[in-house]
């Protein structure tokens, strides 16, 4: 199911900080234009964490 916050009702005890839709990219992703990631500690230049989708 993809995220849809268009008709959201007000919440009392929960504040949404970031809306993301990772599930929705299951069908649409995979173009491979994003930066290549590297989880190695010696390669700050290309770790996954702060990558953006270039699509």
């Amino acid at each position, binding site marked *: 199911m993809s995220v849809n916050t268009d008709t959201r009702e007000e919440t009392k005890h929960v504040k949404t900080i*970031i809306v993301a839709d*990772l*599930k929705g990219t299951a069908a*649409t992703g995979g173009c491979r234009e994003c930066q290549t*990631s590297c989880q*190695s500690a010696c390669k*700050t230049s290309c770790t*996954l*964490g*702060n990558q953006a989708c270039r699509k």
Partner: protein
Amino acid sequence: MAAGARLLLDVQSGSLHSLDEAAWDVLEALEQGGAYDGTDRGSRVDEVMADLDILIEEGTLSHPDDADPMPSALGPGVVKAMCLNVAHDCDMRCGYCFAGTGGFGGARSLMPAEVGCRALDLLFDISGHVRHLDVDYFGGEPLMNMDAVVEITRHGRELEARTGKTLKLTLTTNCHELSPKIDKFLNDNDIAAVLSVDGRSGVHDAVRRTADGRPTFARIAGNMLRFVNTRPDGEYYARGTYTRRNTDFVEDVLFLADMGFTSISFEPVVAAPSSPYSIREQDLPAVFDSYDRLVAEMASRRAAGRGFRFFHFDLNIAHGPCLAKRLLGCGAGREYVAVTPDGELYPCHQFVGREGFVMGNVWDGITRPEIGEAFGGAHIYAKSACRDCWARFMCSGGCHANAHEMNGTLMTPYSIGCLITRKRLEAALAYAAMTDGGS
């Protein structure tokens, strides 16, 4: 949760929520097996459950029974990035160096420019339809082979013009020989820079010394400041390594921020358990405390108009990579290869010199694709340690080289690395919450 924040991360959508005390208590009770059957409930519990229903309805909170989504296909690997080890040599002898102080366990050598140019030809060719390519000048110390770097860069820009592709270049350096001439070259050619420095002079000089044993902090700090001041808009990171000797590395991060660096990254050393530098389990409480203190201090400085970027807190949560990408955070062997000075291809810079991992060479291309396929099989759904980890879509499985080094297999992540990554992500999410979404 770090810094006192009560956060709810929906692992499957990636959405992040902040909870009040009542909602936190209800979720804790549910997590500990408390039943909620919709009867005999107090009004606040009722309200919390209604809130959670709203989140589930809109898709920003997954139902506990929801299975992880499957991408349509992971697909074959497409190599689109290269690490060019332009120098298997170094003018420094850092105590924790994974590269055998430059030689990667073999003879010290420099990459001929023609090898680097041929590597770029191969990259532009085998990347197929992918338009955005990345190359990192690495080593050893790449400044020991600047003539080749200049020629390879010129060739890369020609390939860009000819093909319409985009080539992002990065150079990782110890800064010892950084000069005004090199500053200008890096700026003129739009080359991002990763500048190695370990923070406080005593911490830095205890590990990062010249080949003849002299301290390096004063010289490299001066070079770095001069360089950074020549590129107000250019990309750089002041990048440090912390070890068990400075688990209070928050002080090193803040020291660099106080020097004027605004893009900073610090990483845990990766070393064998027998190394005097390796992070052990007993070091973790102090390491975790450093991340917590860093969150609080960064938020405070940001509010005061003195903010700086810390690489690992700079998550792009809402618009990050797609699910297919997140199943395999490590690009080694599939999207990324390392090139040695004599033109051999390895899955990544850390595998250079490890027996059985030569994938081909720059003249013949990838001759052993089965190596990349094995890396492709080590995705998070295939690894038991990742399958139920809350950080699985943000960490995406960790470093394959570390897994192989520590456990002899790609399928079992390095456990200390997992613990640190989870803490670092927790801290990054707390920072995002404290700053309304991050930096």
